[in-house]
């Protein structure tokens, strides 16, 4: 990071020195234009690169900034600075409206929606020629009021290079030294795996919204200054074409890379020159050749990995570390774990009942395991507890207080944080940055303070870093803080997820199959970590197939089968439960025995097996792979079970009637 900052500082210094060596007004205008395009591309990089929202609307936001500024200056005699500020505000408002609409949708649709916005902006410019000047644009000429603050003026002759450079550099510095540093790890989590980020409590939608809005505002600023620099707001210079150009600049240079837009812009300028040469040789127009050359370069980059030129020039920085250098497990300070209950929870997906009247209770400072065969609803229950799925019935209760319907982010703010089944590997992200993102769940929004680089933000950043390091130490990974994720083992990557969850200072930790993919040695470490967390007072709810691990760490166990809790108690208690044995072993005798108990008065509901569908021997492994609708042709055994259910009004059949066709 330091080296890249040095490169950036050097580039800025060179940029500042341009007028010392270049005295030609036209070249200074071009240099200022290049700076402003770079600014627009860097703005786009915030949304497209860092937040993973591929915006094709940057040309539209630039158009709003440019035309607002030009119209106010040319037609209403406004001060250029005031006009530019209004232009930026208009762009920001437009970007916020667009961002509000697209923050929750998937990236391809973000591209489509923003592309439509760019077209709408272009069509609006064409539709009101009396205001926008039609093809002739809005010429600013010589504004009546100068840029007094800096003692220089916007002139149609020598450009105000320094004024433009100062604004551009200020924005770049704010972006890089404040915002990207502050939000970078969270952005990386958002673009890498939004679901995992949400589960960790990272406010994905809010970050995407902020990134798109900030991106649009920067685009608007670039547009305003481009219009002032050129002396005209030109319809051919903005809109969809500019969007695509900036998109290509970021892609070619490398998205989510600090130097990416600069490298991309240089590449595009070189391509433009080369295209002119080719066009001259072929007797064609450069405008016809340029897209072909740019497309060829882009295709080449995509073929060779698609990470952009920065990665081609800069050796991939994968920091490896010596084997076994993770470090000891450092206990966390005592925490006040919370009592978490799931009460009578029911949910169905389509026609499949995933959970039915399912209740569990995890006491503070205990480890509560949820086990059961594949497709029994364990992960669904965990997702409901974590806020990722809204149940149709029942409630989640934290410390006696029923929680409102919420999303993972709000649950995380209440202290309930979940890890996912799958391993998430964020490329080029250090372990420390990965964990820092988890802190976002509990951090207040500090956008303005971050822009201003308030002392409190710097102090907060130091605190965040310390918390993240403590979380790494808690899972025994302090020694790999600066290692990139791809250099870690699978077990370490999963421990890292726990560390990220810990960084948000949870009161309840929901772990979904944390031992998946662990070897025996690594499993021991996980066992130590979980024991330490429980002993520190944290409430741990863990979905786990590894019964050996469950035996060793769980205080209580809930056994799920086909969406219902069939047993609950200590490990020893549930181990002897015939329903559990039936669920796990699937033997006919056990199965029939369980069935017989289903509707017998006096037998607790938890012992009643739903006996839906066809089950065979259950194997360890996660997922909802074998959750299915009631088969059209059930086996003899299950048909017998159905008959029994029908005859007695059993729950299995009641469920079927309650949700016909669902």
């Amino acid at each position, binding site marked *: 990071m330091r080296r890249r900052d040095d490169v950036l500082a050097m580039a800025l210094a060179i940029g500042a020195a341009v007028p010392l060596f270049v005295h030609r007004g*036209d070249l200074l205008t*071009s240099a200022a234009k290049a700076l402003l395009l770079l600014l627009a591309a860097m703005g786009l990089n915030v949304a497209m690169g860092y937040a993973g929202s591929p915006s094709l609307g940057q040309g539209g936001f630039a158009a709003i900034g440019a035309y607002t500024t030009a119209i106010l200056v040319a037609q209403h005699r406004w001060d250029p600075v005031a006009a530019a500020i209004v232009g930026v505000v208009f762009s920001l408002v437009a970007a916020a409206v667009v961002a509000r609409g697209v923050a929750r949708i998937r990236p391809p649709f973000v591209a489509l929606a923003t592309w439509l916005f760019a077209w709408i902006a272009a069509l609006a410019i064409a539709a009101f*020629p009396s205001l926008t*000047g*039609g093809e002739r*644009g809005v010429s600013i000429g010589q504004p009546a009021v100068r840029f007094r603050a800096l003692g220089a003026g916007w002139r*149609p002759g020598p450009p105000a290079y320094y004024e433009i450079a100062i604004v551009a550099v200020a924005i770049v510095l704010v972006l890089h030294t404040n915002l990207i540093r502050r939000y970078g790890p969270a952005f990386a989590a958002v673009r890498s795996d939004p679901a995992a980020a949400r589960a960790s409590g990272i406010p994905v939608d809010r970050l995407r919204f902020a990134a798109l809005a900030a991106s649009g505002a920067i685009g608007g600023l670039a547009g305003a200054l481009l219009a002032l620099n050129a002396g*005209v707001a*030109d319809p051919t210079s903005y809109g969809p074409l500019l969007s695509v150009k900036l998109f290509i600049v970021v892609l070619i240079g490398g998205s989510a890379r600090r130097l990416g837009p600069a490298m991309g812009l240089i590449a595009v300028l070189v391509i433009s020159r080369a295209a002119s040469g080719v066009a001259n040789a072929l007797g064609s127009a450069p*405008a016809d050749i340029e897209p072909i050359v740019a497309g060829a370069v882009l295709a080449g980059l995509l073929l060779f990995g698609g990470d952009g030129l920065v990665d081609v020039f800069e050796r991939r920085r994968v920091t490896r570390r010596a084997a076994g250098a993770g470090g000891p497990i450092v206990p966390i300070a005592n925490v006040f774990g919370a009592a978490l209950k799931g009460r009578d929870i029911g949910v169905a997906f389509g026609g499949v009942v995933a959970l039915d009247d399912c209740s569990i209770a995890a006491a503070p400072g205990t480890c509560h395991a949820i086990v059961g065969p594949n497709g029994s609803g364990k992960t669904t229950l965990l997702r409901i507890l974590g806020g990722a799925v809204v149940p149709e019935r029942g409630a989640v209760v934290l410390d006696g207080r029923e929680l409102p319907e919420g999303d993972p982010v709000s649950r995380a703010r209440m202290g309930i944080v979940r890890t996912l089944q799958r391993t998430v590997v964020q490329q080029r992200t250090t372990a420390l940055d990965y964990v820092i993102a988890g802190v976002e769940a509990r951090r207040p929004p500090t956008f303005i303070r971050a822009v201003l680089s308030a002392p409190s933000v710097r102090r907060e950043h130091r605190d965040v870093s310390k918390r993240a390091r403590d979380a790494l130490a808690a899972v025994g990974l302090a020694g790999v803080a600066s290692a990139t994720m791809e250099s870690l083992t699978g077990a370490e990557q999963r421990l890292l997820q726990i560390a990220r969850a810990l960084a948000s200072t949870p009161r309840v930790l929901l772990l979904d199959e944390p031992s998946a993919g662990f070897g025996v040695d690594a499993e021991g470490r996980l066992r130590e970590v979980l024991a330490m967390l429980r002993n520190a007072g944290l409430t741990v709810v863990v979905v786990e197939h590894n019964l050996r691990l469950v035996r060793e760490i769980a205080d209580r166990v809930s056994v799920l089968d086909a969406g219902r809790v069939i047993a609950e108690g200590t490990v020893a208690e549930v181990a002897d439960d015939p329903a559990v044995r039936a669920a796990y072993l699937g033997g006919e005798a056990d199965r029939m025995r369980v069935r017989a108990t289903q509707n017998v008065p006096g037998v607790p509901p938890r012992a009643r097996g739903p006996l839906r569908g066809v089950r065979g021997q259950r194997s360890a492994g996660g997922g909802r792979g074998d959750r299915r609708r009631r088969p059209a042709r059930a086996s003899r055994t299950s048909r017998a079970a159905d008959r029994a259910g029908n005859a007695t009004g059993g729950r299995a059949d009641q469920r079927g009637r309650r949700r016909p066709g669902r």
Partner: protein
Amino acid sequence: MRGTQLAAAQINAAGGVQAGNRRVRLGVRVLDSEASPERSAANVREAVRLGAVAVLDEGTGVDASWQIANAAGVPIGIVYQGGTSLVDPVKRPNVFRIAPTDRGVSFRLAEYLVPKGVKIAILHDDSTYGTGGGAALAQAFARNRSSVTTTIAVAASATDVSAEVLRARRSGATALLVWARPSIVALAIREARSTRWTVPIYAATSGGDPIVRQQLSDHPDWVDGLTFASSRLTSEKGPGPFNRFRSAYEKRFGVEKVGVRSGGKEVVQPPDEAMYSYDFVLVLSKAIEAAGSATPGPALVKQMADVDVQGANGDERSFNEVNHEGVVDDDVFFAVLRDMVWIPVKDDALSASLPAVRQTI
């Protein structure tokens, strides 16, 4: 562009321009504005840097570039766009135009059409050319509003104008007047004729563009009768001067084939628009001589308004302090297309006095 090159070549062949006590040769540098005002402004900056004595522009970028040129004392010559606001001797002392103005064409159209008693539906596109024309026609017909049944705008990039032509037809119009890019003119004719709307169709200068005939080459009969306005190619001195200019032009650049045939012969386009840039260079060279210097500056701009030359068609071309228009509004004539070539109409006094020019080879 070719008119400029031809004029420069002829002047240089004659020994160049006498600028004070030395003769200078004229050079032509082509910078493509790509119809972009910003590009146009950048080109003018480049031209100023190169020490250009004048800039010729089709007109789209002049709003954005005239100040840059004016600061350097470089005159700008507009050779296509006719928008009223482009030329203003007081506010834009360095901007001159040799091309028919929107105002001139529209008033001549009104003057020609109103006496016919037709009810006109006006169709214009949203290009600068079309919107400027639409505005000029509104002014021209302001005193005869009853002659216009409707005014309809269409996108310059449209590929289908059926709805607009239908609206025009339903307005009760007995004539259709199109002021738009050539492709839109062709589309409007195709739509009207294919739906058997047989009213007379009139067009502004773009009606004479080869593109109209090219795009309707599958139905030559639909082009027949299209009447368009244009600036006169011949002066009171007869066709001699224009034919000499044309001969030199075609000798240097070849004939411009339209791509259609008439009476079995290939149709060619006379170099009408090239005439304007050619004439501008003649005025410029005379201004340089009068200023005694080939260096751009206020003196050169001033002399542009003080000199006069005989233009390519034999007309006198000149500007003055209060008028920077090189084509007189009254010089607009009307021609009608017959079998893919045009002939001056007979029911307009000026047009009837003009000889036809050769259009086939």
